[in-house]
């Protein structure tokens, strides 16, 4: 059961069409999510990680956005081709989502218990009474003390950490197969973040859902995820087990990203930096999208875009450095210099 694939994304492309041109926010993403597994998607602002998650739930505002290519297979069924009616049955039921700021996703004037119960009545066909009881049970499950009392309260009466717990309770009420968590702890303080992460891990063990964890925080990735996809300029540039990623990052961007983190238990005079800035999604270069900032870039990097290649078992990287052509080019250059 555990290794069964629940979600498979193939060559997903989400573009935004405006007067300025076409912004390729997500530009050919592939990944596989298995039951009980956590896949992290990391990257900096504008890399397309949130757009990927919104695309999976078909929540891209359209127009201007559009999924122009690719498949999103949930248990083999393609979400891209589904009607709104069919999607409504899946959202909040088989796939749920938690966002960064719970206050904007909760209805401010309805008691939180009722908001959770609503999803249960809608998707699971429970009666009002049953749904309320289940809702209170869920609130208890995410570690909120005196759940009966809290269920009757409105969002503003709860703290930020509690609201995020309510969001988790709501997302998990219908025991989804996939949970998409988009920066779920970014707005929280570290001690509260630690609590929330612990609860998510705990509930994953109980329910067995696959989690797609979207974050910019590499520390959180290291703690939460089994697999990690590193995104840059709308593409996955590296995909590895999180255990090996931090020891052995392959892509120069990943190396730069890890290097630029201030270390908590190490003295550093100066931080490593990545020169330059991210290219505009309206106008990506022909070659490797990181070439302009890459310390290793050669002629071939600027000319032609590398594919995401299998470097080793469970290790994929989008970089010319790890191809045969690279070695040929390097050796021919050595011959010239000799």
């Amino acid at each position, binding site marked *: 059961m555990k290794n069964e694939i629940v979600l498979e994304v193939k060559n997903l492309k989400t573009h935004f069409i405006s007067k300025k041109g076409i912004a390729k926010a997500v530009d050919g993403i592939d990944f596989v999510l298995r039951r009980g597994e956590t896949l992290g998607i990391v990257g*900096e*602002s504008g890399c397309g990680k949130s757009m990927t998650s919104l695309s999976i739930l078909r929540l891209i505002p359209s127009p201007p956005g559009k999924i122009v290519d690719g498949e999103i297979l949930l248990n083999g069924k393609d979400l891209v081709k589904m009607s709104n009616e069919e999607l409504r049955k899946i959202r909040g039921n088989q796939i749920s989502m938690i966002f960064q700021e719970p206050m904007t996703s909760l209805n401010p004037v309805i008691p939180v218990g009722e908001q959770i119960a609503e999803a249960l009545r809608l998707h699971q066909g429970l009666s009002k009474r049953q749904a309320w009881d289940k809702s209170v049970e869920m609130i208890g499950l995410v570690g909120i003390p005196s759940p009966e009392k809290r269920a009757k309260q409105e969002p503003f009466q709860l*703290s*930020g*950490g*509690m609201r995020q717990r309510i969001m988790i309770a709501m997302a998990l009420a219908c025991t989804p197969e996939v949970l998409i968590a988009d920066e779920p702890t970014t707005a929280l*303080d*570290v*001690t*509260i*973040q*630690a*609590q929330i*992460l*612990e609860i998510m891990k705990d509930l994953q063990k109980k329910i067995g859902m696959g989690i797609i964890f979207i974050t*910019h*925080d*590499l*520390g*959180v*990735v*290291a*703690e939460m995820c089994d697999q990690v996809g590193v995104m840059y300029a709308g593409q996955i540039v590296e995909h590895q087990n999180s*255990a090996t990623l*931090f020891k052995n990052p392959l892509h120069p961007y990943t190396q*730069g*990203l*890890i290097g*630029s*983190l*201030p*270390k*908590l*238990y190490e003295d*550093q005079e*100066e*931080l*490593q*930096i*990545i020169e330059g*800035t991210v290219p505009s999604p309206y106008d990506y270069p022909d070659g490797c999208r990181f070439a302009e900032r890459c310390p290793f870039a050669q002629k071939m990097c600027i000319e032609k875009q590398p594919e995401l290649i299998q470097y080793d078992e469970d290790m994929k990287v989008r970089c010319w450095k790890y191809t045969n052509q690279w070695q040929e080019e390097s050796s021919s250059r050595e011959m010239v210099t000799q």
Partner: protein
Amino acid sequence: MKTTVIEKKAILQVSELKQHFVLKKEVMFQAKQVVKAVDGISFDLFPGETLSIVGESGCGKSTTGRSILRLDEPTEGNVLFRGQSLTKMNKRELRNIRGDIQVIFQDPYASLNPRRTIRQMLEEAMAIQKVLPPNQREARMLELMNHVGLRPEYLERYPHEFSGGQRQRIGIARALAVNPKIIICDEAVSALDVSIQAQILNLLKKLQKDFDLTFLFISHDLSVVRHISDRVMVMYLGKIVEISDTASLFKNPLHPYTKALLSAIPVTDQTQRKERIILVGDVPSPINPPGGCRFHTRCPFATDLCQKEEPTLRESADQHFVACHYAEKLSS
């Protein structure tokens, strides 16, 4: 280095600073509601050092920065800058002194006027503080742009034309324009991506060296604080719970709150992960903070004494101050 810092005379002395905000006045049977954002803190800032204030939301770290500059009038206490009392100054004197103490905020976009070019902003700052005669300002502006790593032609541009990292550089340039002695950095790198954050941190360190600046660095991010500070001060609900040099704070935290805070930080190297202390519950409301030690409601080691008596900030190890009744017992 540690000892030389201490022998120097403090450039900024904060004593018994309190910042209370009245939410509701006393009416009939309802009690007065007062947020005690900062509740009696004292510390010294020495020339050339970086002192960080860390803590979670609502601990009073930003309010401390604002009270020092009197952006909010402090309720009580005294702040001395080179022996002059900031709290007793009139408006004009205060304006003059603000040239010596500058601030950089978290969101540079919100603190840059969108309808002014960079040139106009720098010009204005210099004019108000009368740093240079007008004919020398042009050269100074070019110099500033160079210091913060921006191209000179950007002087003619507006804030919206820049990325987040570049805007932060503009904020820094503007602060530097008036030759300050102290810069208060309030979450100055928190909104930036890690690769950009690294650029700005390196820049701040370099500028500190080049211009002999003193930083009061306010942040919630402990890895950033570890990297940039000489000394660190940890706040919880308006009080200082621990203050020490960076190395000993991270190696040997004494207060249970500091320990929990350090252990809660997710790290990429799982072998260095400390045993996690998960605190129960949320930070109590600063409106009616708990009596005794303010941390006792969440502290795993709290006793009756902690509920009754507030611990004072005392020197537990060499230059390592902590406000906990049981600091020594807990660390042994």
